């Protein structure tokens, strides 16, 4: 019941958008190869689901694995940089640089080094996911309430105690905010990573459909990507609520 009340609005809005879309397509007689109507997409979805589900499953695996690795790496980097302000000054600009290596350039190098296996894909997803977490975590650590930090230092807390007992719990909301951004990108990251050499996955399905002008199937792929992102995002929200539960002030 509570769920309906909370999510009802979003679902209603979504339905509204889908309906307007359907209507627009029908009224303007937009050809299906240009922009298929939602109903056509859904009926196509039902048709292809049996063969498509292995693609979906493989992409989910990829996205979750990549997100996990990316978040962990991001978190660890953030902690290290936070603990060593000098290193932070040195490395932070490089992290920004890392976000500006176009995938099309990285792809051949990764393939040469790691082949077409799992590794280069995880690296691409990880590269997409780790950055928002680093930025958010660092900002979270830095903006700890000063009087609490003061107190901890007075009490003789070591740097690591300061971190575990104060900065980490205090930065949880910020961390989750970064994590949610990353999660949003993770599925798309997985799909992009599949474009550099995969045998199955949503990305493969999408290019296949694209090159044979099956725009309806392309949209099936897009809807799936969106659904998956929302699911991962929702999962993280749940984890966030459980972790920050009861920590009332925040």
């Amino acid at each position, binding site marked *: 019941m509570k769920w309906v009340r909370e999510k009802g609005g979003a679902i209603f809005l979504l339905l509204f958008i889908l309906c307007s879309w359907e209507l627009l397509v029908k009224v303007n007689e937009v*050809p299906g*190869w*240009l922009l298929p109507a939602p109903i056509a997409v859904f009926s196509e979805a039902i048709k292809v689901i049996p063969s498509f589900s292995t693609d979906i499953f493989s992409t989910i695996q990829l996205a979750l694995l990549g997100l996990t690795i990316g978040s962990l790496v991001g978190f660890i980097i953030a902690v290290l940089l936070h603990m060593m302000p000098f290193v932070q000054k040195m490395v932070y600009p490089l992290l920004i640089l890392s976000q500006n290596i176009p995938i*099309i350039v990285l*792809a051949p190098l990764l393939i*040469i080094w790691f*082949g077409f296996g799992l590794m280069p894909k995880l690296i691409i997803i990880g590269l997409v996911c780790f950055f928002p977490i680093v930025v958010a975590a660092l900002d979270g650590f830095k903006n700890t309430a000063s009087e609490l930090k003061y107190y901890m230092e007075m009490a003789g807390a070591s740097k690591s105690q300061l971190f575990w007992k104060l900065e980490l719990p205090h930065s949880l909301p910020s961390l989750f905010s970064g994590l949610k951004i990353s999660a949003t990108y993770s599925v798309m990251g997985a799909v992009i990573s599949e474009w550099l*050499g995969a045998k199955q996955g949503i990305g493969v399905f999408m*290019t296949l459909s694209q090159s044979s*002008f099956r725009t309806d199937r392309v949209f099936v792929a897009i809807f799936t990507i969106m659904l998956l992102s929302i699911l991962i995002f929702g999962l993280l929200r749940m984890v966030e609520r459980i972790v920050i539960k009861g920590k009332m002030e925040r």
Partner: protein
Amino acid sequence: SKENSDELTKVTVVLDWTPNTNHTGLYVAKEQGFFEKQGLDVDIIQPGETGADQLVASGKAEFGISTQESITQARVQEVPLVSIAAIIQHNTSGFASPVDKNIKSPKDFEGKTYGGWGSPIEKAILSSLMKIENADSNKLDIINAGDADFFTMVKKDVDFAWIYYAWTGVEAELRGEKINMLYLTDYSEKLDNYTPVLATNEKLIKSNPDTVKAFVKAASQGYEFAINDSEKAADILLKAEPVLDEELVRKSQKWLASRYQDDAKQWGEQKVEVWEEYANWMTEQEVLEGKFDAKKAFTNEFLPQ
């Protein structure tokens, strides 16, 4: 040319890839004023990740570079694309592999890995070639290698890929990399399709046939220029796109010069049998899911008499 430019009809042509020697005729026609003489002001645009087809079909661009296999599939999905000239008369593409992979016939595909860009045609062609040689197409691995180029792909995991000889093959020559090349035309007449072709959409043909005619005429002059003087044509392309590698362009241009028109009566001509046989083959391979009408897919009527 500036003062009478408002009398010129503005048209846009979208390429199928980054500019290369397949497109030389267009650049020549633009630079030599052939288009202008026909009353056209032509804008040459590089495609997005998606290629030109949808843009041309929707009328956002008047003309585009496409291929017979695309147009065939597009027509079946009721996309109103029409081929108006074959840029290269015979299919110059094929499966390339470094010599040390020892791939000399489709039979050798067994146990190998193919790196493709993600089209259902690839699988169909590979398995039909292998069938001709009684090889088991289940023993072939197909990887969607996306953005990676041939040379990168074959460094790792991938054994062979599908290339245009005029560009990637020539680059391999330049690099001194020995490759084995299996041309599609060596194995099946049916696979000698037109690639690439000039395309436009049905609407423009109906509403503005003169523009189409003018465009094809100028393009045809451009390609004839390239056939006759490949050195000068290469200069023109390089001047327009200075980023391109000079050696590659010159060598590729020379290789292509005799192949634009080849054995046809005139540049750009297309035969209905080629369209029909290719479509039949695609239907056999279960790549086409629908009816295909060759007569609607192409036309020779705009070629200069």
